[in-house]
């Protein structure tokens, strides 16, 4: 066995040179490019992380804006609802007031119409009663339309207050005696006798014909009236019936 020291030395030198060459032209550039790539990857990861954080912040901001918008919308809805409720209440109040006014007006109008109709009915009833009574009295003898009412007229004079009685025919004045037809001399004499007896003194009168009395007699002065006629009785009956109808309606 023999060691070639020249070869050993040359190989050692060769290996050292190779070590320098590979270190300079292979390992170091590769390590640098790996480090650069790692740094670039780290930078990209950091940028991605930063972008992610920004995106998350933007998302949170968007959520917050959406919540604020929802709250504002709800506030507007509540305000509009309150305003609409107020408006509704005001409209309802106005409508109720207007309805009450219309109802009161209608009620008054109905009352007026009812009263008008009642008056018309009363008038018609009076006319009908007068017509019926007049036709009935046409079947009686003409004396019955005067004689039967003389005593009643005298009783009416008796029931007058004393002062009113004293004023009748005072100072030679004449009172008006209404009759449904012209009186005969005998009928005038009978009436004069009955009136004189009722007053206790003589009473001068002037006869006035009023066919609307139907039958009966009436005395009228400036301050008093004594009525004893069918017209007066019918008017009283109709008025009484009308008052009863009103009380029932009420």
């Amino acid at each position, binding site marked *: *066995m*023999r*060691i*070639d020291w*020249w*070869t*050993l*030395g*040359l*190989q*050692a030198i*060769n*290996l*050292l*040179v*190779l*070590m*320098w*060459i*590979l*270190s300079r*032209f*292979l*390992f170091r*550039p*590769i*390590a640098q*490019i*790996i480090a*650069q*790539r790692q740094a*670039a990857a780290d930078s990209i990861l950091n940028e991605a992380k930063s972008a992610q954080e920004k995106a998350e912040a933007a998302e949170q901001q968007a959520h917050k804006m959406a919540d604020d918008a929802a709250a504002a919308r709800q506030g507007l809805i509540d305000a509009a609802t309150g305003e609409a409720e107020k408006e509704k209440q005001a409209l309802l109040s106005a409508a109720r007031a207007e309805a009450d006014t219309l109802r009161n007006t209608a009620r008054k109008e109905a009352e007026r119409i009812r009263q008008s109709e009642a008056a018309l009915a009363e008038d018609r009833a009076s006319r009908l009663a007068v017509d019926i009574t007049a036709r009935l009295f046409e079947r009686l003898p003409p004396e019955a339309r005067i004689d039967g009412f003389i005593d009643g007229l005298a009783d009416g004079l008796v029931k007058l207050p004393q002062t009113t009685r004293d004023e009748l025919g005072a100072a030679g004045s004449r009172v008006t005696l209404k009759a449904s037809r012209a009186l005969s001399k005998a009928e005038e004499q009978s009436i004069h006798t009955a009136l004189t007896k009722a007053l206790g003194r003589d009473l001068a009168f002037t006869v006035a014909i009023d066919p609307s009395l139907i039958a009966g007699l009436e005395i009228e002065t400036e301050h008093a009236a004594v009525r004893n006629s069918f017209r007066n009785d019918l008017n009283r009956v109709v008025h009484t019936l009308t008052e009863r109808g009103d009380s029932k309606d009420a």
Partner: protein
Amino acid sequence: MTRSPLILEPLFMIGPVPITRPVVTTWAIMAVLTLFGLLLRAHLANRPGKLQSAAELVTEAIDHQISEVLQRDPAPYRALVGTVFLFILVANWSSLMPGTEPPTATLETDAALALIVLASTIWFGIRVQGVAGYFATFAQPSWAMIPLNLLEQITRAFSMIVRLFGNIMSGVFVVGIVLSLAGLLVPIPLMALDLLTGAVQAYIFAILSCVFIGAAVNGENDPPQDEHRKWDTT
């Protein structure tokens, strides 16, 4: 008949210096690796191609092995370990070239490699621990161990030489014998086996270099705790 691998005959002379076949083959390997390095450096990009990816894979594997063994930053040791690994690998596989004998099949080349590793061990040990600190490790665990530790430095370098030389030389020798006896295609399985053996031997030599350097820089291969933490995080 195959000549003895223990005897080197000079191919030519440069002055008084005899230039033997392993030296010429080593120059060729150096030229190839240099050309490869220059081409790769010229085409380095952040988006690597296939060749760059392969080179980065090898470089990162070397860094990973250094970090695993030394528990330190691999940068100061990358050139030594990487060069040892690549040179031995390419040298071992150079036997595939017809008429080429791997330089690692000679004792001189293996001895040069082992001497460089031994010198690097001493250099890194002194640089990390200082002169006194490094030589104090020879007295561990006691002064009585100094002769044995010194002897260990020599014997483990010698073991590296013999291991690499024996494996590669035997492969070349067997292939030569089979080729001379059987014919042209018969040694192919043995050559394929030599590829595996060559890769394994390159890995073993590089790892043993890391282990020896680690023992020198860490003191009996016991790395500091802060260095553990440093590399655990990477």
